[in-house]
């Protein structure tokens, strides 16, 4: 299968990844060869085969939906490092909601 830069760009966009130009070529080549390998599946006639979407035979495994305190909010937040380094920072909270950047580009 011919996998080109545009297709990688499309996938990267869907996956919310930013890929450099050099990386695009590398990934295009690698993913193309992996997808070629998948061609093995075309050799078998699977028209009448039911897809297997779940291995165990379990169905409808339920328990009571009981509210319980799982974490102590103060203790959990206290365990998050508080530094100026964004890599380590816990998310900023406002009224129990997480603050995120503006969605408008």
């Amino acid at each position, binding site marked *: 299968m011919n996998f080109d830069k545009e297709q990688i760009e499309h*996938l990267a966009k869907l996956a*919310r990844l930013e890929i450099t130009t050099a990386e695009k070529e590398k990934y295009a080549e690698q993913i193309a060869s992996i997808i070629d*390998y*998948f061609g093995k*599946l075309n050799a078998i006639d699977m028209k009448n085969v039911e897809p297997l979407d779940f291995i*165990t035979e379990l169905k409808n*495994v339920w328990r009571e939906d009981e509210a319980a305190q799982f974490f102590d909010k103060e203790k959990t937040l206290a365990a998050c490092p508080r530094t100026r380094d964004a890599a*380590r920072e816990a998310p900023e909270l406002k009224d129990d909601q997480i603050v995120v950047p*503006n969605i408008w580009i």
Partner: protein
Amino acid sequence: MDLTRMTIKQAHYGLENKDFTCLELVDGFLRKIKKRNKNINAFITIDEDGALQAAENVDAKIRHGQPVGLLEGVPVAIKDNILVKGLKATAGSKILEYYVAPYDATAIERLKKAGVIILGKTNMDEFALGGSGESSYFGATKNPCDEKRVPGGSSSGSAAAVADFQCVAGLGSDTGGSVRQPAGFCGVTGLKPTYGRVSRHGLIAMASSFDQIGPIARNVEDAEILFNEISGTDNFDSTVNDFSKKIKKKNEITIGVPKEYFVAGMDVEVEQKIKEAIAVMKESGFNIKEISLPHADLALAVYYILMPAEVSSNLARFDGVKYGFRAEAGNLLEQYLWTRSIGFGDEAKRRIMLGTFVLSAGYQDAYYKKAQKARRLIKNDFDAAFKEVDAILTPTSPTPAFKLGEKFNDPLTMYLADIFTVSANVAGIPAMSIPAGKTKAGLPIGLQIMANYFNEDLIFSIAKKFERENGYVN
């Protein structure tokens, strides 16, 4: 006295008889870890304070004449994608470099209840995506049998630590072979339980219909002891079940050898050692029968379609919003893009994109749905085989441990190394790798035993018999 060479039972009896204290036992391992970590790089986090404190508690119990359980005071290593409360859980990735686990995984809760002492968290391929141990943000782990070679992956640190006597035993996780393959490469024992036998609560998800936590140990009995402790139903994981009690024990066991697994491309010494192992099994009293798993050669393609699809979904949560690394950005989309591009390594990005591809509009039928159908065919093959035989024997890998860097630049070649292990995850059946011997150069060769769903006890009994007949290979 070198206290690092103990089995679980030896450690237990030693503590009971007061041959040594738990503090001495734990201290012995901590010193070994510190001595070796620069070379082997098996550990990302070493919990010295926690382990020593836990050891003192065990010693206090013993001093007061209180009985200690079999696992109490036994030092183990835990793969860094399994949450241990209060310790970092990095999954081998930059994106979780400073993430501290807010709770214990169910498997960890059970081990802690049994009194196990956690020495630290072990290195791994990032998010368990790898088969060599080279894809960790924290650097590659080396094979203790030959430091120029890979230990295998993705449970690279746990397997290397066990093989290097840095702990008594450890936990890893297995999605396509990630417990068995490194166990095989490092010369130790590793079990992938039946899918659904061990709770995945607290295991950072990779591919949810394939993942299982499994023990890595220096002998079968230790793996069995750990397995029994961690397995069982859990309110936090609705895929856990156990039908093992419905299995009738048999006196005569037949082991199948699938002809599709002995094809060209396998290392000559590996093939030879496995054939010798089959002969040992025959002499031990097992019936040997050639069987066929006709769709065996589809398993790798099925795995590399379905697994990345699940990975792309499971790794979507790493967006810098709730936890983990967060890139400074002016808007939300940029935060996602930059957080994930900086935080994820190469292999993670590759598999996420592969998964995105097979799930994307226009390609789902051609790849994802087809792979699901082929998954059914592979499962059917095993169902049919287990009507004829009780267990299946294969090599764990087609080659012994390869050199660092040898396969790193060609992903497809790297993926092909999983060819013997993935089928068990595709079908969900239990499988174990045990040492079968070594190559002339001294590299370990792993033997894989697979059995029908919930037949772990059968695997243990066959493996133990082999250990006895073949001599302890460690």
